[in-house]
């Protein structure tokens, strides 16, 4: 589902974020991406979302070579990738429902389907009763779950998460990880960038480790 072939990303002459990274993730696989700050985790995620383009090598997502993708096509790739951020990136000028509905509106889903699918996603993260609230009224863990609902509402085959449990206590973090595990069971490829070694060890999943832009563990082909 996601494949990196000899991917190098250099920002300028003296800052190389990724060096010849090779790995591939299969459909339905859940993997962690770890490493020290500045090891290149965010860069790797940005390459998958086509927020950045690799300096060398190839990034393939769902069979699409992203290097040669024209700029016009980028939005359509992003519709197949759900993203969860540490700081949620929720909009506080609208309700929880409207936040979650955004990916569907972008895709031009008919209004009657939007309601059904948004509620299904909110139900999945256990927030169905709060659809009419403003995200500001929710706790940090709930906000994160709204972010997850938004990431999965259009059933993307790929789900990326950047430090999704960064601000949460261990119990909430375990809940969130459990959610990600459920998504991978239904065939979603999940890649979670995280610092949280304890949590990663608990989950016993494949772990890609980056060190100064090199992939030092977990590379190659997935199961």
């Amino acid at each position, binding site marked *: 589902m996601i494949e990196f072939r000899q991917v190098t990303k250099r920002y300028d002459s003296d800052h190389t974020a990724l060096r010849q990274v090779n790995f591939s993730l299969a459909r339905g696989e859940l993997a962690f991406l770890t490493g020290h700050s*500045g090891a290149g985790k*965010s860069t790797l*995620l*940005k390459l998958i*979302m086509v*927020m*950045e383009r690799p300096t060398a090598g190839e990034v393939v997502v*769902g*069979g*699409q070579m992203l290097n040669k993708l024209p700029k*016009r096509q980028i*939005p*359509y*790739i*992003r*519709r*197949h990738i759900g*993203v969860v*951020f*540490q*700081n949620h*990136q929720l*909009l506080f*000028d609208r309700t929880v429902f409207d936040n979650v509905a*955004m*990916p569907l*509106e*972008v*895709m*031009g*889903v*008919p*209004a009657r389907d939007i309601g059904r699918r948004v509620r299904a996603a909110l139900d999945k993260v256990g927030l169905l009763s709060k659809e009419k609230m403003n995200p500001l009224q929710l706790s940090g863990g709930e906000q994160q779950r709204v972010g997850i609902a*938004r990431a999965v509402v*259009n*059933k993307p*085959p790929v789900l990326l998460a*950047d*430090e999704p449990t960064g601000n949460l206590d261990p119990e909430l973090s375990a809940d969130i990880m459990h959610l990600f595990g459920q998504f991978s069971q239904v*065939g979603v490829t999940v890649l979670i960038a995280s610092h949280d070694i304890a949590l990663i060890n608990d989950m016993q999943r494949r772990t890609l480790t980056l060190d100064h832009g090199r992939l030092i563990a977990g590379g190659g082909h997935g199961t």
Partner: protein
Amino acid sequence: MAPEPRKQTGARKASSPWQELAESYLVHHRKVARDSAERLWRTPVASSMTWMVMGVALALPVALLLLLTSLQGVSAGWESSARITAYLKDDVPLERARELKAEVLDDSRILEVELIDKEQALAEFRVSSGMEDALDYLEGNPLPHTLVVTPDKASRSSSGVETLVTRLQGLDGVERVQVDLGWLQRLNAMTDLLARAVWALALLLAAAVVLVIGNTVRLAIENRRDEILVAKMVGGTDAFVRRPFLYTGAWFGLGGGVVAWVLLQLSLWWLSGPVGRLAELYRSDFSLNGLTFDGALALLIVAMLLGWLGAWVAVKRHLDDIEPGEIAGG
């Protein structure tokens, strides 16, 4: 990339996916249009300031255009009263003058001919000039017989009058033919000049409107930065991201157009009294024309287009700068 399996579609009424897509597209347009309008309502002071600026900028050239068409109406009105005066040679006797009158009247292009003979002319001159005493010292009557010719409607154009003048000049016994159209030509030249000035002004003010809207929309873009980032992140196309701002621009334009129309109506109402009195003094049927329904509609449409264009300029310049790369952290 497994697309979402389509459930229920078959069970619903037979609407094709394309129809459904087009329908949701329209629904989205309506939603965005309504949402943009509501946003303007929520900041009534800021919005009405922009509307006022636009209104003034639009009302000015439109007012001048209206004045211009009114003036052109005047010259058209006076053209219809164009008369040709033919002065006969001094030695032409009255009988010959009568013959000439009949001859001229034969022409189908001539509506009416009036013969003013020497004596009558002198009498009129005596009365109107006030130089009675001076005239008494003259030995004879220095004035010639005169034919005052009114062309029929079809020949009242300047070229029609021209051919009539040539024909009258060709007649035996005619000394000189005079058409008092000089002032009319001057008026025409002046309105032509004014027209150009008005159009230049209109262009400049239209550019100003576009810039004002562009700047206002730029602020709106800044205010909704987070929303733009999220929309781009979840796969919103450029058109999707642009849409609310283009509608914002169009609504600004519409509001500006309405303000301009109100300003025009107010100033017309305010001016109509004095203008009427002035026209009366000149015995003219001159009146300031207001905007017709079509004109008002055109004003609103043009205003909306200008607003839309301004928004488009702003969106083009600033939307590309907002890329979701920055929210993913370092």
